[in-house]
């Protein structure tokens, strides 16, 4: 019995940091409507700075002072980020905000390694809370008891802040209707900045307070942010009480989940989240979202199928690409195969994101599932390559069918958070379930059959499949289903009013995209000869997002170009620098702020501008603007 009580108290203690970070995220979202992916990064910086300060400042005052100073310092960094970056993108589409803050996260990951080194740092114990308290023969660290008391205290302070201060009233008003608050003469800029500062302060405090419990390391940002997303999805984004209750719930589920499913404890959290989403899609304490704010697109070019000349051009490009094995060496061909595979991956996400308006932040899950599917079939069942390639992607298909069913119940930022959380769950399973997946060691020796073994032959296979997949998905854009999918994206209200079951259409699109990604993953397994948990990791999901963004979200097939350019650049970059995340993150931020239309979108715009200036014909008679794809 005592054991369970202690387990329960440990859960409560872990909830403290989770609550601090989640409440910060919620407060920022409430006012600015930005889901700050970089929140985990601020949590991590808080921990690192606090570590450095607690090492320098001695005594009890030094320790506690260091924690507070660290939180303030990070809040200041937050203010700078808000003023320099976020102010430029408050009116950008949601997706761009998510990506910009994600880019920031990537940059921070490399920066902390640069400053503090790659090793785990073990911090000091908290003065005054060094010992443990005996509870019927079980030990409870006294610092845990301190944390257990802390969260309700913080909750109380936040409540007072929002109910009793002028600033709190403004924040609550802005959460309801920020335009109205601006119309009443409140300086919105500083309101947003101060809210961001408070949110970041809470995150950094959460990070700093973790030092006595856990080592500080450079991957703690992603771990916390995924848990925080789960917390806000369960508790309801924008609700501080919700963040508190859900943080406790999730922490307890983790604490007891380990006892029930020691290998895959995360399953329990997932099940609870699934139930909450079915019963209350907007979270336990959240409010149903008002009709989603429609972000006006960047262009209104209607999409159209390729003309016969453009088809010929695309075919010519394919033929030229197919001649590569005639003159290129093995390394180039392997790179070529990898690029072709990433074209498959990118177009599959593009289909979901651009056509369906559903920005998945965890698309790599289905890519990786396809890869694992092949590995299982090839290694365990010993099936030949052709059969594996055909059946392997079905694992991606099944994963997409299960997760997609829940994900399409939500939209916008919730959809993004949920897909990310799902991907992380799949990753954890691949990582933890060592007996089946090999864990971190992966599954090795997935080699292609002899007919596809040479780099040239494999390249042709990858290129052929990529071409087939691109053509098929493009055909789907202009199929009745494609029209229906675009309809659900453009106006949920109208599509329902013309008899379209939007959720089923979107679910189908999710499964199609997931299966296609699985095809890419299946080929990838054979290309590398192995599969690892990284094949379904977050960084791969982000790669896909960047490829789509780089090509142009609002184009029909921009992702093809985006994938080729990005992957080539990426492979080159990794060979040139150790700080690839820093460069990549900076690159993402740069695209979002200066180059939001992507390569193909920008080309289209330029062509359109040239066409508009040349013939002075009547604009009324102008045909829909043609695109250059």
């Amino acid at each position, binding site marked *: 019995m005592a054991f369970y009580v202690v387990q329960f108290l440990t859960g409560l203690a872990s909830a403290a940091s989770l609550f601090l970070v989640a409440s910060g995220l919620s407060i920022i979202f409430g006012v600015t409507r930005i889901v700050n992916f970089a929140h985990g990064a601020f949590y991590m910086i808080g921990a690192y700075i606090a570590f450095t300060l607690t090492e320098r400042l001695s005594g009890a005052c030094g320790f506690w002072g260091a924690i507070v100073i660290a939180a303030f310092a990070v809040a200041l960094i937050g203010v700078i980020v808000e003023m320099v970056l976020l102010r430029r993108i408050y009116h950008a589409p949601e997706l761009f905000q998510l990506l910009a803050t994600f880019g920031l996260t990537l940059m921070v990951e490399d920066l902390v390694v640069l400053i503090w080194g790659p090793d785990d740092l073990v911090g000091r114990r908290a003065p005054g809370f060094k010992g443990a308290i005996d509870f019927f023969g079980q030990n409870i660290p006294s610092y845990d008891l301190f944390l257990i008391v802390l969260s309700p205290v913080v909750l109380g302070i936040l409540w007072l802040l929002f109910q009793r201060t002028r600033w709190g009233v403004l924040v609550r008003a802005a959460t309801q209707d920020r335009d109205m608050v601006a119309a009443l003469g409140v300086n919105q800029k500083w309101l947003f900045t101060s809210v961001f500062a408070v949110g970041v302060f809470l995150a950094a405090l959460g990070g700093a307070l973790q030092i006595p419990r856990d080592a500080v390391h450079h991957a703690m940002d992603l771990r916390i942010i995924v848990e925080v997303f789960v917390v806000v999805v369960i508790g309801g984004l924008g609700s501080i009480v919700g963040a508190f209750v859900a943080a406790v719930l999730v922490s307890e589920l983790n604490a007891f989940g380990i006892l029930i499913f020691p290998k895959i404890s995360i399953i329990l959290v997932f099940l609870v989240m699934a139930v909450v989403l079915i019963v209350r899609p907007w979270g336990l304490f959240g409010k149903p979202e008002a009709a989603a704010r429609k972000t006006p*697109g960047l262009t209104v070019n209607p999409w159209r199928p390729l003309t016969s000349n453009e088809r010929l051009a695309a075919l010519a490009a394919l033929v030229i690409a197919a001649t590569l094995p005639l003159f290129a060496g093995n390394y180039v061909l392997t790179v070529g195969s990898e690029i072709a595979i990433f074209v498959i991956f990118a177009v599959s996400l593009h289909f979901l994101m651009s056509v369906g308006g559903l920005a998945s932040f965890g698309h790599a899950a289905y890519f990786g599932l396809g890869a694992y599917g092949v590995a299982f079939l090839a290694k365990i069942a010993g099936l030949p390559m052709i059969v594996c390639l055909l059946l392997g992607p079905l694992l991606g298909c099944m994963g997409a069918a299960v997760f997609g069913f829940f994900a399409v119940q939500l939209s916008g930022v919730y959809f993004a958070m949920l897909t990310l959380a799902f991907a992380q769950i799949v990753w954890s399973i691949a990582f933890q379930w060592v007996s089946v997946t090999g864990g971190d060691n992966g599954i090795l020796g997935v080699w292609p059959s002899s007919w596809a073994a040479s780099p040239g032959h494999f390249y042709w296979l990858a290129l052929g499949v990529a071409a087939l997949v691109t053509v098929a998905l493009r055909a789907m854009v202009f199929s009745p289903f494609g*029209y*229906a999918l675009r309809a659900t994206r453009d106006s949920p209200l109208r599509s329902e009013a013309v008899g379209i079951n939007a959720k089923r259409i979107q679910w189908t699109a999710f499964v199609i995209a997931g299966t296609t990604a699985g095809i890419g993953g299946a080929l990838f397994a054979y290309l590398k000869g192995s599969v690892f948990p990284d094949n379904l990791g977050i960084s791969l999901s982000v790669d896909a997002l960047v490829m789509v963004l780089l090509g142009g979200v609002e184009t029909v097939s921009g992702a093809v170009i985006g994938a080729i350019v990005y992957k080539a650049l990426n492979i080159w970059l990794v060979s040139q620098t150790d700080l690839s995340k820093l460069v990549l993150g900076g690159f993402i931020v740069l695209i979002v702020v200066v180059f939001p239309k992507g390569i193909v979108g920008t080309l289209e715009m330029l062509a359109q501008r040239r066409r508009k200036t040349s013939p002075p014909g009547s604009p009324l008679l102008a045909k829909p603007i043609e695109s250059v794809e």
Partner: protein
Amino acid sequence: MSVAPPLLAVEGLSKSYGGIHAVRGVSFSLRSGEILALIGPNGAGKSTCFDMLNGQNKPDTGHVRLLGEEITGKKPREIWRLGVGRTFQITATFATMTVRENVQVALISHGKQLFNLFGSAPNFDRGEAGRLLELVGMGGYADRPCGELAYGDLKRLELAVALANEPKLLLMDEPTAGMAPRERVELMRLTAQIAREKSIGVLFTEHDMDVVFEHADRIIVLNRGTLIAEGSPAEVRSNPQVQAVYLGDGLLYDAGHGASA
């Protein structure tokens, strides 16, 4: 007294929010080819009433029947499948698609081809889409992106979309809101003409009395959730209660008045 059930029969429809009775025991019916206006001052319960007919909102009590079939509490998309077209107070269209594609989406749905993955949508029922657009006077705009259209043209487009499933009943929520006076008359004339030709029943809410009295065959008047009058335009115009509601008799907010009559 025909034996066949009326096109639309509404019986004892009620809905309250907290202590407020937004709609209380409203009953009326509508025949095929008839144009019925639902009017009333702001807050009378028109929109609530309307949303319960089209499935946006579920009534607390009461029944809505379409040709005798119970449609109370069905989803909007199910009601659409039974032959009810809709236009919105604030237009809802597919902004990134062309005018023709907007109509084609409705035709695809009507033809149950929504899950057809490999057909050609640009050629789907192109002729029928063109005919519908001609019908509402939008034939020349078929290839224009919908996001470029003027508001009045969007309203016409919505009408074409609403007609795509060969509806028996059209529900139009403030069809002329936000339009210039001349456009209003034109749109309602067009609607009335189509409704009579195809024998479609039309129920619309409207604030513009000129439009109402010129085009409605019959008018029902809501005030504070209850039906206070029903009849031909002439009857409604001369009804003292309606006059009191619209012109004011100083008793509008007296709880006992009107509702108990």
